[in-house]
């Protein structure tokens, strides 16, 4: 399986568009949103400055982009094109394909997180303790697994034609409503009530809790855990269905 991961990675690193959107785009968006914010006024109810707050949002967004896009569209296309069938004629276990995809996406998502941190620290003077930087990186990286599973599920659900719109709607919907692009505190109350239950909101909240040096909310952990079980379970079920059909 290592050779498949290596090849998936080679190919991901060769794809400039994918690299731009997952590694550069979140940092650019960070500069756009936080660029004019002064470093003293706080985001309502968080005690964090806008750059500090948005840094986590954008790092989460970047990781989300890498794992969701990397998985869903490729899997749907390769299922349709027959590459998945061809791989089933090799000794590679069926889930090896999914693991290789997710592993290579995870390798791309790490720099997308780190680049946002570097830009935030150097351009907007975001300052955190060493343990916070490490914990943030670890939490956002690990949390992206939830969305990797979602990407796999979409990849096995959608056909090659439908996969892009479905991915885009899921991706923008989750990003915006989950508050990755702007703090949910700016939303009307009814929308805040919805956003609170989205996995992307819980995902960013996890990072923000680390920035605030406090324990994450139990609700956020629960939302992430339940989402992961749902997405991974759905992906496994769809994968099995697809295998029987092919």
């Amino acid at each position, binding site marked *: 399986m290592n050779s*498949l991961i290596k090849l998936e990675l080679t190919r991901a690193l060769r794809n400039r568009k994918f690299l731009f959107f997952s590694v550069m785009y979140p940092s650019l968006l960070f500069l756009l949103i936080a660029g004019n914010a002064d470093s003293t006024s706080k985001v309502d109810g968080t005690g964090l400055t806008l750059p500090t707050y948005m840094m986590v949002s954008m790092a989460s967004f970047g990781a989300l982009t890498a794992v969701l896009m990397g998985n869903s569209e490729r899997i749907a296309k390769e299922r349709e094109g027959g590459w998945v*069938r061809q791989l089933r004629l090799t000794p590679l276990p069926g889930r090896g394909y999914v693991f290789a995809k997710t592993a290579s996406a995870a390798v791309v998502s790490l720099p997308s997180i780190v680049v946002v941190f570097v830009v935030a620290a150097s351009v907007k003077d975001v300052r955190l303790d060493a343990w916070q930087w490490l914990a943030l990186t670890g939490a956002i990286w690990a949390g992206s697994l939830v969305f990797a599973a979602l990407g796999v599920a979409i990849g096995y659900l959608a056909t090659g034609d439908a996969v892009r719109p479905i991915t885009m709607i899921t991706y923008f919907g989750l990003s915006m409503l989950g508050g990755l692009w702007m703090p949910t505190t700016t939303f009307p109350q009814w929308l805040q009530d919805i956003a609170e239950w989205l996995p992307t909101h819980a995902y960013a909240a996890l990072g923000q809790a680390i920035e605030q040096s406090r324990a994450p909310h139990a609700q956020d952990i629960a939302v992430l855990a339940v989402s992961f079980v749902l997405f991974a379970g759905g992906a496994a079920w769809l994968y099995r269905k697809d295998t029987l059909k*092919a």
Partner: protein
Amino acid sequence: MTTTAPVVAFDQVSKAYGEVRAVDGLTLTLRPGETVALLGPNGAGKSTSLDLLLGLKQPDSGSVRLFGTTPREAIVAGRVGAMLQSGGLMDEVTVAELVRLACDLHPKPYQANDVLARAGIAQIADRKVNKLSGGQAQRVRFALATAGDSDLIVLDEPTTGMDVTTRQAFWATMREQADQGRTVLFATHYLEEADAIADRVLVLHRGRLLADGTAAEIKAKAGARRIAFDLEGTIDEAPLRELPFLTSVTVSKSGSAAGSGQTIRIQSTDADATVHALYGLGVYPRNLEVAGLGLEQAFVAITTAEEAKSK
């Protein structure tokens, strides 16, 4: 070791899609070292049979065994290499990278460079997979199927998308695989291909095995020898129609400059007996030719006869 187990054993295998019985009670056995062609018109169940053979589909009833194990176990043990018509390739990587991957995944791999050379794609090793012509992509698929020392090679319509010259060059590549003692099973609708390479031909029709034998036996089964000769003057057709082992007779004006001759064309299941009886009629056939029916004609004869029977 399971040396005594047949390479492939289908036992009463059926697979239906809704109302359509794609494979219907198929029983067959492939033995080590055979080169077998799987023939059949479109929709005969070739692709479904190969999917069942490779464990990509599960039969509704009956059993499929490879080397005495399940298809998946045989694949995991590296005993099977296969290229499918529907088998896609990974995009955005080079031919060499993809072949190297196939070698890495195989339990008994060959050197990637050797695999590339044998499949005749060493010159395009650095090309991106999504930039290949149809025939080149077929060769890459073939390379993936032959990346290691497998005992059975399964090829589904391997020469689709190749022109006549490359097709014949590709046959040599296929024969090499057979000459190394492997069992080769290939589906094709080029009958010439089956005739040239296979030492056993399976004819599949509506999911059932219609004929199983050497190309010569298949031809014989179809009433498969052609007799042609010229006669001077005109002859009464009635006694010709009485000849033994005969399946058809046509009489036409001969094209020769000799004048008022006739050309008689006969199809017979036993040409020797038919010709012997012909001399008994007291005629003097000129330019006598006895030739085998092409596999193509035999195939058409067998399947149309079956169509007629099932109506």
